Structures are given as structure tokens and as C-alpha cells.
């Protein structure tokens, strides 16, 4: 009985829990509720995966209204893959949140923080599940509005300005998405994604469809932090509480990327040559520029969180490369990078958060010698950095390998040079941090610093080790991603 309602439970459970958490007074109780709910999420995601493996893709009709009149939730391999990414990051990171948030957010605000966090994952799960273009907008705004709040709760007062700027840019992005959905609705008369893609066949060469795609790309590109549209990201990640930065970098951009991929290959797939290909190639060149510029910018940052933020922009560029290549290996590389980068970047931000918890500051000059004071935290940081750089035997290498293979299949060997080049720059900007941390003399501020508490180390190590593990055992990550890429490419013929 309850099993048939699993798809909607994934969204409704955190939504209801957010309301409960908001009325609780105590930070610890609200954390416990959050933890319980978050640990239920992967179970639902895996239950959906097993259901999917036994019976194939299925849909869930909200309120019993048949699609395309009602809203439907679709469960296929891509949905399950994204659900597993988001729920895994959430369940691993929440134990970390208790101490980290207690030190960065005032006690009275902690229940509200957890409430925002639950609303945020509600929005993400909603975007992943829904098969309705406008419903996706509503969930996008649920997750964005709560992420503005999560950013604004940072201890630094600049967090407020960062959240305000993200609000302005993010709302314009979401509005562009609504404009695109409106134009598509005018042209096709439906909001159901499957229905839109069928009806686009008749109108694919008309100008409003092209305009819709451009609006859609720019709007989702803002949320995805594609290169020229990434300006909100460095400040938001740098001033947000470390836990928020880890969650945002791990999940929010990936889910926007997911929606973009769905629209490109599943909705506009039939009109690939007329509509999407010219627009994507413009953004492809910007993505190439973005990889170079953001990587170089990362080298010149003083704040470690900002280094990681710029590196995120470069990594989003990788995903864009895979989307542009649009062949099996390239798209597999992009989708598997959703997964790998979520693990890597969350691990890095959690490590930085542990240092912040003990030291109160993550500017590079204050980190000297921290590797001796906090050996376990920094060792996990090294593992994740190695994976970010993409040495063979790490998760980062797997995604780059597939991207490079995809580039070679299209005969675009300069892209391989670009990948190697940006990896070399990643060595420089991560190496700068490691050099200071391991070879610097402990400064007066860091000499009394102790190792981070176990509740922070365990989540950090789980993520850091899995970012290595998925470099060796790629059965799950690449297996899922290639299956997803196959079905996506079949739709775009």
C-alpha cells in the first residue's frame, strides 16, 4: 500500500518535517528530527531503484489526476541516480551539521536553519521527480528561497549581501525559466514534459521555440553556475555556513544541471539540429573559457572556500563539455561527474568546515601548519583534492576519462589538452593550500588547535573515501550514468 506512494513520500516527508522542525525550540531536537528524516531519504531512493529494476520506468499521478491533465512524477534511471546522489550527500552530511551549525548559527535560529535545509531538499527532490515543467519551477523556487536563507545565516555579515545578490540573480534565472515554459506552453498547449516533446515535433522550426530554449538555457545556466552566469557563486559559498556551502555545492548545481540535461535531450531532443545545437555551441565556447578563467581565478584566491567555489565553476564547465559532446562517452562523463563532483566538493567543503570550526577562519595565511594540528581532517582533504585533480584511481579521473574519450570520438583532441591543462591548474590551486597546510610553520593562532570532533570526521571521511572508492569500483556510478546517457541519446535520435 505505502510502497505505491513512495515517489511522493520522497518529497512530502521532508516538507512536513520542515514544518515540525520550524516550531521546535531546541536546536538539538530539531537536528534529531532532521537526521531521522534525512536518513529515511536514501531508503526511499533505493526502494524506488529496486522497484525500477523489477518493473521498468513508472509514473505516479498526484491526486489521481491522469497526466497530461494532472502532475505526474516519473521514476526512471536518471531520476533514481539523482535521488541517490542528493540523498546520499544529505544523510552523510547531516551528522556533521550539529556541531558545525551550533558554532555558526545562533541557538534561536538553529531550528529555522534545519527547517530551511529540509525545505531545500524538498525542492531538490521535487525538481528531480516531477514530470511537469511548471511544477519544476515551483520546486526550484522552494529550494532557491530556502538556500538564500541558508546562505544569509553565515556568521560573516557579508553573507547577507551574498544572499541578496544570489536572490536577485537567482530570481532572474528562475523567471527566465518561467518565460521559457510560458513560450513552450503557448506553442504546445501543455506543461507535461513528455507531452511537450511530442508536440514540439510540429513547431520545432518556429522562432518562439528557439526563444524558449535560449531563455531556458540562460535561466537554468544561472542556477547551474555556467561560466558567465556564475557571479553569485563565489560569494555565496564563501560566506555561507560551511555546512550550507557543502550541501549547495554537492546538490543544488547538480540538480539544475539535471533539469537542463532533461530539457536538452528529452524535451527538445527531437529538434536537436534546429534549436538546441546552435545555442549549446555558444555556451560550449563560454564553458571552455570558463574552465580556463575560473581555474586561473582559483589560483589567486586567499580564502580557501573561495578557491573551492571557483573550482566548482570550472567543474561545471566539464559537465557542460559532456553535454555539448552529446555522444555516449561524453554524456556519460558529464552525468557521472554530477555524482563524482558532488562527493568530492562536499568532502572538500566539509574538511574546510572542520578547520573553520576549530580555527574560526579559513584564509590561506592562517592555515599554515594546520596539517600537523589536524592530521585526520587534512588527510581527508588531501584525498579529496587528489580526486578533484583527477589522478588515476580516483573518482575525478573516471569522469575526465569519459569526457576525454567522448572528445576523441568527436575528433576534438584540443579538448583533451584543455582537460589536462585545467587539471594542472587544479594541482596548482590545491597544491597552494596543501603546501601552506603541511610545510608552513604553525602560526600563533593555530598552535592550540586540536583535531576536529568525531561527528565531523566521520562524514568527512565517508565522503573522502567514497571519492576514491568510486575511482576503482565504477560499476554503480558509470553503470548508471551510461544507462542514463543511452536512454537520453535514444530520445534525441
Amino acid at each position: 500500500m505505502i510502497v505505491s506512494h513512495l515517489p511522493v513520500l520522497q518529497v512530502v516527508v521532508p516538507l512536513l518535517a520542515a514544518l515540525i522542525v520550524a516550531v521546535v525550540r531546541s536546536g538539538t531536537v530539531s537536528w534529531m528530527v532532521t537526521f531521522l528524516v534525512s536518513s529515511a531519504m536514501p531508503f526511499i531512493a533505493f526502494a524506488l531503484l529496486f522497484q525500477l529494476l523489477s518493473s521498468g520506468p513508472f509514473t505516479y499521478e498526484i491526486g489521481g489526476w491522469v497526466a497530461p491533465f494532472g502532475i505526474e512524477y516519473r521514476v526512471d534511471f536518471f531520476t533514481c541516480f539523482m535521488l541517490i546522489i542528493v540523498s546520499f550527500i544529505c544523510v552523510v552530511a547531516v551528522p556533521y551539521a550539529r556541531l558545525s551549525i551550533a558554532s555558526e548559527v545562533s541557538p534561536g535560529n538553529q531550528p529555522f536553519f534545519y527547517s530551511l535545509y529540509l525545505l531545500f531538499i524538498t525542492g531538490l527532490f521535487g525538481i528531480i521527480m516531477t514530470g511537469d515543467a511548471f511544477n519544476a519551477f515551483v520546486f526550484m523556487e522552494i529550494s532557491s528561497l530556502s538556500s538564500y536563507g541558508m546562505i544569509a545565516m553565515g556568521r560573516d555579515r557579508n553573507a547577507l549581501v551574498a544572499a541578496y545578490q544570489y536572490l536577485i540573480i537567482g530570481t532572474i534565472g528562475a523567471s527566465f525559466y518561467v518565460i521559457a515554459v510560458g513560450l513552450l506552453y503557448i506553442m504546445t498547449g501543455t506543461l507535461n514534459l513528455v507531452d511537450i516533446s511530442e508536440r514540439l515535433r510540429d513547431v520545432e522550426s518556429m522562432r518562439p521555440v528557439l526563444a524558449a530554449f535560449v531563455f531556458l538555457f540562460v535561466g537554468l545556466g544561472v542556477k547551474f553556475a555556467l561560466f558567465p552566469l556564475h557571479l553569485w557563486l563565489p560569494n555565496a559559498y564563501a560566506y555561507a555556513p560551511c555546512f550550507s556551502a557543502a550541501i549547495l555545492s554537492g546538490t543544488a548545481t547538480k540538480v539544475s544541471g539535471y533539469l537542463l540535461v532533461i530539457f536538452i535531450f528529452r524535451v527538445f531532443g527531437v529538434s536537436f539540429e534546429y534549436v538546441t545545437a546552435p545555442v549549446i555551441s555558444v555556451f560550449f565556447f563560454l564553458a571552455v573559457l570558463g574552465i580556463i578563467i575560473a581555474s586561473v581565478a582559483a589560483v589567486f584566491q586567499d580564502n580557501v572556500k573561495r578557491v573551492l567555489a571557483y573550482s566548482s565553476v570550472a567543474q561545471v564547465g566539464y559537465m557542460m563539455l559532456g553535454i555539448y559532446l552529446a555522444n555516449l562517452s561524453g554524456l556519460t562523463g558529464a552525468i557521472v561527474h554530477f555524482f563524482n563532483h558532488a562527493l568530492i566538493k562536499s568532502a572538500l567543503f566539509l574538511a574546510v568546515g572542520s578547520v573553520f570550526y576549530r580555527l574560526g577562519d579559513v584564509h590561506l595565511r592562517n592555515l599554515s601548519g594546520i596539517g600537523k594540528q589536524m592530521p585526520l581532517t587534512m588527510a581527508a582533504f588531501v584525498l579529496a583534492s587528489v580526486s578533484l585533480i583527477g589522478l588515476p584511481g580516483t573518482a575525478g579521473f573516471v569522469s575526465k576519462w569519459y569526457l576525454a574519450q567522448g572528445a576523441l570520438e568527436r575528433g576534438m583532441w584540443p579538448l583533451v589538452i584543455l582537460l589536462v591543462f585545467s587539471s594542472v591548474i587544479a594541482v596548482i590551486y590545491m597544491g597552494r593550500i596543501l603546501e601552506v597546510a603541511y610545510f608552513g610553520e604553525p602560526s600563533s593562532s593555530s598552535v592550540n588547535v586540536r583535531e576536529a570532533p568525531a561527528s565531523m570526521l566521520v562524514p568527512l571521511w565517508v565522503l573522502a573515501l567514497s571519492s576514491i572508492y568510486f575511482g576503482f569500483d565504477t560499476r554503480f556510478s558509470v553503470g548508471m550514468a551510461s544507462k542514463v546517457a543511452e536512454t537520453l541519446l535514444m530520445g534525441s535520435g
Partner: protein
Amino acid sequence: MYFPDWFIVHYSYMITIFLMVSSLYIIVMRSNMIKKLVGLNLFQTTIYLLYLSPSKITGGTVPIIMYDKPGAIYSNPLPQVLILTAIVVGVATLSVGLALVVRINEEFGTIEEDELFDGNV
């Protein structure tokens, strides 16, 4: 089609585009954070217009089925429902934005972006 005819057919889109571009101009050019939010809200309101104007059919009536009048033309109710949702989202965004501006004013003593970024505060 001659220009006057073309304009009459498309005038609601012209108004939408004009408002859209001017609201983006407000967002980009104003340094006052409240004025930026006004621009943002105007931008969202323009989208309501984009949705609502095509939903009106000449001679169309309220979409409640009238069995005594077969062949009656009904206006499409869906855009109105969507925009009702979008209005709620717009109000929520505006209130979060205003709350942030209040907090920024408390912390920095100014809501002018020029002053914030010049580092005078």
C-alpha cells in the same frame, strides 16, 4: 502585414517586452537595494502578463461547462492557475529580499550597493 496591423495583433507582447526590459534596466542600474527589488517584482509581474494575455480568446467565457449552450467558447483557465502560483512565489521572493535588506541595513547602516562595495562601511 502592414506595421499598424502587425502592432495591433502583437501589442500585448510589445508591452510585455517593454516592461521586461525596463525592469531589467532597473535591476542592473539602480544601486538602492529596495529599488532593485521593485525592479525584480516588476520583472516577475511582466511574466504574469506573458502568460495571461494569450489565454484570452475573443468571445471566450468562464470555463464552466454550459450544457445548454453547446459549442460555447471557453477561455483557458490553466494560465490563470499557474500565475496564481507564480504570484505566491513572487510575494515570497519579495519578502525574503526585503527581509535581507532590513538585515543588511542593520549590519552595514546602508542599503546603497555603491557604498557597500566601495568599502566605506
